[in-house]
């Protein structure tokens, strides 16, 4: 049988966890081997050591904030990413629809937003830090500025996909421009915007962690860069896993919203 016709069938759930198990095993063996040579090894801490560190992060209140550090860091980071993505989504939706639906505004704005989208966001981080200082707004702004151009262009593209016939048809039903945007363009664009948002999550986390590493006093990115100085791999590794899990959960929640709120969307394809 050809490989392209071979499905996992009922073994599919089992297959999914195989790479994770292998990664864990390889790490375990490697950590074990290093500790056999040097019991003080910090590069690959054992699972026991990681467990201990996680316990401290989760259970013990920090002297300053009186909350466990993982909690403080998670709240700080999630707030920043949510605000940044929220702003980017609203801007992307509005400008994307305006540029995609109204030819007059497309002529005016489209080349400009195309040019802006080419600015590497990290390159303007110094500018943001100068303008906003070390406050939250600089980090939120970096995420928003980093993600918004992609959302704008993606939404513009999707607004322009609506067939000419469909737009003529809705005009023959007596629709005004505003009504066309509200009842035809918006529903068409919304699930696609959420899809684009899912694709932006990776970039958003990248900007967040960069900003936190450079200028912050709490947050997930701040912590892992701080711990690097002391080579505390037993903190860094679970933090990276935690960030990955959070990113996965955000993606999953967005996918769920799309499925629930726009049941027609997957059927359409």
């Amino acid at each position, binding site marked *: 049988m050809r490989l392209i016709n071979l499905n996992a069938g009922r073994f599919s759930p089992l297959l999914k966890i195989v790479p994770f198990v292998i990664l864990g095993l390889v790490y375990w063996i490697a950590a074990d081997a290093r500790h056999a040579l040097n019991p003080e090894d910090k590069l690959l801490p054992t699972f026991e050591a990681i467990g201990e560190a996680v316990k401290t992060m989760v259970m013990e209140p920090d002297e300053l904030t009186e909350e466990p550090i993982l909690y403080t860091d998670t709240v700080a980071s999630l707030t920043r990413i949510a605000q940044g993505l929220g702003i980017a989504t609203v801007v992307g939706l509005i400008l994307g629809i305006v540029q995609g639906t109204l030819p007059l505004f497309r002529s005016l704005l489209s080349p400009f937003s195309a040019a802006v989208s080419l600015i590497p966001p990290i390159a303007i981080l110094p500018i943001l830090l100068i303008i906003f200082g070390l406050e939250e707004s600089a980090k939120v702004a970096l995420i928003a500025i980093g993600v918004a151009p992609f959302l704008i262009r993606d939404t513009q593209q999707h607004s322009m996909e609506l*067939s000419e016939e469909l737009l003529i048809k809705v*005009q*023959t039903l007596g629709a005004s421009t505003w*009504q066309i945007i509200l*009842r035809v363009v918006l529903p068409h664009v919304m699930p696609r915007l959420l899809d684009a948002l899912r694709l932006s999550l990776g970039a958003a986390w990248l900007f967040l962690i960069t900003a936190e590493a450079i200028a912050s006093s709490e947050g997930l990115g701040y912590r892992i860069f701080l711990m690097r100085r002391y080579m505390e791999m037993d903190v860094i590794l679970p933090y990276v896993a935690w960030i990955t899990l959070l990113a996965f959960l955000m993606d999953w929640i967005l996918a769920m919203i799309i499925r629930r709120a726009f*049941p027609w969307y997957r059927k359409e394809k």
Partner: protein
Amino acid sequence: MSYLQIRNVWKTYEDNVILEKLNFTIEKGEFCTLIGPSGCGKSTFLRMLLGQENPSRGTILLEGEPLSNEPGSDRGVVFQKYTLFPHLRALENVMLGLEMEHSVFLGKAFGSSRRRIKEEAMEMIKAVGLEQSAHKYPSELSGGMQQRLSIAQALVKKPKILLLDEPFGALDPGSRSDMQELVHGLWQTYGLTAFMVTHDVKEAFELGTRLLVFDKVRNDPHSPNAYGATVVNDIKLDKNKRKNKGEEHVDHDETIIA
């Protein structure tokens, strides 16, 4: 005064003449079928009636008023390509036109007016025979059903003229003849004034009360775009033949065309 007057209408794109010297009038309740070779401008003519394109010269008057130069609710349209709103269920697709008329800002009706609009739309859904599928999304409907829905969507706005651009072109022969029956029935029930572009000569004769044949009269082989097409044959068909539609006309119809 005639319902629809076409007065010396020309359509040109730069040096290309698509249509020239169109001059005719249409009475209320006529079902005009438009045939002619590909690229002879019959769809262009339909688009001008729709307001999607405007005449380069001449005027089109509907009830004595010039047509507005963009599509509007006085002219309904059914395209060959299904133009349904994928995010709305069948019934909501028909309600949309009424809702937008009702609510300028939200384009959506609520409460008692929504119920009233729903009833009106449901009647239209029944008229095209889709009551079983009223709560399905367009993607769950067959091609024929989607086209029925498209017609219901247009008719619920009670347009002064209904424009059909090869509406059955993408359908299989079975649903095609069902749709012809349906459109014929709707034309009788609602007293529609309709224009239909078709490639099917038999269909043009069976459905129409007036057959307009588009073609080029003059042709310059050195400059093929110098002359446009016009109506070369304007055939009035028997309005009362409708009941037992079909075969008896077909044979000599072909000879007229030839």
